[in-house]
């Protein structure tokens, strides 16, 4: 009787284990299915852009298969890369984005450190407040911002409107709150004993920040840097509003305003410009991704 019971118990347990691994297999299959679907959905536009950028205007307008290049040409690339205008947009975008990243970091890092560690009256409220400012959309802000800059320009006599450098002051309103918020989280995750140890070792607050917190929270800092750069590089509304002269334009606005003339769309160059414009953030992501993912805090404390 007891043998029979064991025999019965044996297979049922096996089935249970089997069902667990089968569950896992199916979960993986579904994951792959959706990931592939997701990848196709998001990679189709860039692939289409690449295909179009390799076509001449005649081939684009011809009634041929839009997903195939019959006479590939690099003329769009050659024309854009030798065009002073395009290089000017590129240069404006680069200088603005890099400056914005630097300005953002200079403000966000000390702000996040103060809000995360130097407990002072109202610090928690202030931290939430910083994040809330990020939630206000730029489409609501650009009119009052424009008005403000016009007033400042009128009073000081310093030309601010229609100058690329004004964007260096405006973009941080988008990047600083979010980057500060990200870094508050990273700094808060650093064990408190680490700054106490530094404090006892004789470090000042500034030394604790520069010699302990910044190196330890490097993945967070890089995440914030990537974010600030991407936001600045891809920003469309503010440059569209605040800059109008061709020599002051940044890449996204420049491409759409100069390559679309009336109802004539220079599709080949638009796609080429957009692809070239997407290259810098892509390169930055590729280089910094490892850092971004690596957990540098491993080994600081038990765990």
């Amino acid at each position: 009787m007891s043998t029979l019971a064991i025999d019965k118990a044996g297979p049922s347990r096996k089935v249970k284990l089997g069902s667990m691994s089968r569950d896992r297999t199916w979960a993986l299959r579904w994951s792959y299915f959706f990931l592939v679907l997701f990848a196709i959905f998001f990679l189709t536009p860039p692939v289409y852009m690449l295909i179009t950028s390799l076509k001449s205007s005649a081939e684009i307008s011809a009634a041929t298969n839009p997903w195939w290049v019959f006479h590939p040409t690099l003329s769009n690339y050659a024309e854009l890369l030798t065009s002073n205008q395009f290089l000017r947009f590129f240069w404006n975008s680069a200088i603005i984005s890099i400056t914005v990243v630097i300005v953002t970091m200079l403000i966000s890092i000390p702000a996040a450190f103060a809000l995360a560690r130097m407990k002072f009256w109202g610090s928690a409220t202030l931290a939430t407040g910083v994040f809330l400012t990020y939630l206000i959309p730029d489409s609501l802000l650009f009119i009052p911002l424009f008005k403000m800059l016009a007033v400042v320009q009128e009073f000081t006599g310093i030309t601010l409107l229609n100058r690329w450098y004004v964007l260096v002051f405006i973009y941080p309103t988008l990047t600083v709150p979010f980057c500060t918020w990200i870094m508050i989280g990273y700094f808060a995750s650093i064990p408190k004993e680490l700054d106490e140890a530094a404090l006892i070792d004789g470090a000042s607050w500034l030394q604790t920040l520069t010699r302990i917190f910044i190196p330890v929270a490097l993945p967070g800092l890089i995440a914030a840097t990537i974010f600030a750069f991407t936001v600045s590089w891809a920003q469309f509304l503010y440059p569209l509003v605040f800059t109008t002269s061709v020599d002051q334009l940044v890449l996204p606005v420049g491409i759409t305003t100069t390559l679309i003339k009336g109802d004539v769309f220079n599709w080949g160059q638009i796609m080429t410009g957009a692809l070239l414009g997407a290259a810098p953030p892509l390169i930055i992501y590729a280089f910094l991704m490892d850092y971004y993912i690596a957990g540098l805090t491993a080994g600081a404390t038990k765990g």
Partner: protein
Amino acid sequence: MADVALRKVVKRYDDVEAVRGIDLDIADHEFIVLVGPSGCGKSTTLRMIAGLEDISDGDIMIGGDVVNDVPPKDRDIAMVFQNYALYPHMTVAENMSFGLRLKHYPKAEIKARVTEAARLLDITDLIDRKPKQLSGGQRQRVAMGRAIVRNPKVFLFDEPLSNLDAKLRVQMRIEIKKVHQKVRTTTVYVTHDQVEAMTLADRVVVMNKGRIEQIGTPNELYHKPATRFVAGFIGSPAMNFIPCRLEEVGGTLQIRLTDRIAFPLPPARAARYNGLPRTDRLLLGIRPEHLTEAHAHLAPGVETFDTVLDVTEPMGMETLVYFGLDGTPVCGRVDPNAGAADGAPMRLAMDLNNMHLLNEETGVVL
């Protein structure tokens, strides 16, 4: 190196008083252990000495100077944390030398000090590794190394062994003791583990609810506890507390534990307790090692009684026996060959020469 003194030190968090006016004198070179249950204020006291917590009232002195408002970096102290708090991006050598580098010590001296500390702690081979490449015990050694290279006036240890496994804890305990014997730096060590406290300390400070219950050498605390808390906290398994009363029968003072168990007190004890009012509610405090199997020849002051054991725990070199006396659970320690078994009757002997008598209401040892 320096002495440390606490004068009526108070720490308040809003309405809660975490430390309630403690006085403590720590001599130069002394190894003091603050011990007590969670929330007794021991860590807060240590952090106040370190300068990581402001003090609400009183004075803290290091080397005779009041340091109440002196920032941690100027107190010339070093601290070892429970979770090591090593800088994860620095190598062992960089971790150890961080404080010296901040103070712009000459490179040669930094190297000499780090090498010496590494040799002392037996971590010379690990000097170029990052903390994540080290085991828990190695990390704790590095944390100690970081404290030693500074050559501070006072070492502060905040439960440094709590994160280690039992075996490593014993090993590190010995290491810490050896290091202290070599460097002789005044040390304040916080732990909730009474074994750690007893084995490491020159003097143990038992804390409870923000107050000091008793200060004394490990032996004093074990053999002459001042309160029920100390008597119960120090020693494992803990001291038994059995409700009892004093009565005089035929001119002899005796202690009654249950209706059927009463023992005459040894003369020395009888003389000591003679003046106590017979109406007081008392507790007999007796350590498990003074409740053993009964031998044929009993020493004076040792009394026997019969009981039925509830549970036995064979520990190898001894067997712990648990039984009840009128509903009070009691633990004794008997020889593993004494024949103790679960549910079996047994004749036990109580050594009343080592008994304690406590006032049940006040918890004071009489």
